[in-house]
């Protein structure tokens, strides 16, 4: 066990906020039908995780901050690919409403 971090005054609230944000993201993904909005909700979830990393960094050291960079990089890559895919769909459907995306089923 590493030596207990001196103080982590905001740990609880920050983790709570992160959980709330994550849940909001999940809720958004659950409720919305627009691919872009869905994608943004997922970004929200990733950022919630980032928040958690940052918060936990108070406890466990600088590793958390480093990880956030990884996550941001990955998110950026995902965003690039994701937007391209959404664009491709938009070309076919003239919309990004996921309710129209049901050619594949059964």
């Amino acid at each position, binding site marked *: *066990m*590493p030596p207990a971090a001196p103080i982590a005054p905001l740990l609880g609230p920050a*983790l709570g906020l992160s959980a709330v944000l*994550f849940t909001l*993201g*999940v809720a958004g*993904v659950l409720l919305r039908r627009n*691919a872009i909005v*869905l*994608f943004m909700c*997922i970004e929200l*979830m*990733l950022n*919630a*995780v980032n928040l*958690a*990393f940052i918060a*936990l960094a108070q*406890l*466990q*050291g600088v*590793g*958390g901050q480093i*990880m956030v960079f*990884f*996550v941001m990089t*990955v998110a950026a*890559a*995902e965003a690039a*690919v*994701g937007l*391209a*895919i*959404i664009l*491709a*769909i938009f*070309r*076919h*459907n003239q919309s990004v409403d*996921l309710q129209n*995306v049901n*050619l*594949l*089923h*059964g």
Partner: protein
Amino acid sequence: MNALDTTTPIGATLALLPELLLTGWSLVVLLVVAWRHEGERDSRFAGWLSFAGILLSLAAVLGMWHGDWHSEGIAHMVALDSFRYASATLILLLAGASTLLSLRYLGRQRLLAPEYYPLILFATIGMLVMAAATDLILIFLGLEVMSVAVYVLSGFDRYRRSSAEAALKYFLIGAFASSFLLYGIALIWGATGQTNLSLIAAQLAGGAPTMASLGLGLLLIGFGFKVSAVPFHMWAPDVYDGAPTPVTGFMATGVKAAAFVALVRVLDQGFIAQAHQWQPVIGVLAVATILVGNITALAQESLKRMLAYSSVAHAGYLLVAAWPGTAFGSGAVLFYLAAYCVTTLASFGILAAIEHVGSRTVLIDDLEGLFSKRPWGATSLAVCLLSLLGFPGTFGFVGKWYIISSVLREGSWILPVAVAVGSLISIGYYLPVITAMTFKPERTIDAHRQVAFSRAGKAIVAMAVLLILLFGVWPTALLNSAVRSARTLAPQAVVTEVP
């Protein structure tokens, strides 16, 4: 013999040699295709070039394996053990085979963007990293490298609506699942201060705090998605269906293999002390996956979709093998992965050769009379299906037998019975395919005329079939190697001090 210290730069570089080689090579390929991207010739050239890179990487892996490269002390970031080498070998073979199977397909279906092959290489790099990683962060990175590449690959046929749709679904749900996985990593790190699996195991040896358990649960959700375990499987049939067939084959095998070896490493190396917590989850997921996958496959009319559901069902069998958390079970995962991947890839390869240009859906009924027109192709497909079914004398049978053994050894009765029942149900959809191919006459006089195997494709399928039969009859060497590899997976020396 060849001990490496992965904390030194030279050690880390050597430890990642196959991945690095492949990365470098893929960049070269990318560069080459930037200049040569006109027509089928160039595409093929890129393909063969990529294949050479895969071989190179494979040589590195085999060299490391043969040279018994291992880490000094605990493995930081990347493992240097037989389990990694075995899984890397499998992944590279799958990647190579997928590359060769794509050569003709891309030409026929006019998918002549040679970026395809670098993407395969990128995905492969991700997979290799996943297979090698002993650190949650590295697993995440590998997973994302793989996923991003595969998202693109699944939508590679972007002028087809179904392909774009597949990519979208895969991407949205994949990213969604990744965030669960990531959250899990965050919580585990928060609870233990570690991301290295062995160190996590050391921290959690005495029991997991709630935060770590929660993190474990979230990890399982993330992996559940990647291995397409029920109820996180619903993307799989659609995506497999929409993606170009060689990509589907690659996804169904490579992605699943990478996810499973990573999962097994996480569970066995990092959370072995929490087996009582994750075993019920894995067990229930396994049974549900077997049943849902198999039963839903019964209702499929399209061969590709049927294979997609079948691969979901096979994830269930693999989960059964992951359940014991013993070297025996992990060996079963490796062995069954090999069996499943060889067979599935060959099936998709054959399917790719059968597909029409244009309207691509191959219904099971479309296969009627295939045997009389293309006896070898039909026979190969039949052998593959029998192996998937788990028929004695095939690779798949030995695999199932191994899985059942490994679970029975731990005293579970339900899981083996579930495997048996699953196999039984699966005969209900594998058999009609064979029936259609062999018993029924072709519908039209020029049926199956368009079936086209490339020479490389033929070779791949033939080799797969031979392997299926060979390892069905003489599995000894492979079995032993699987167990030996899996033995290296146990948590390394319990370290209480952070170095």
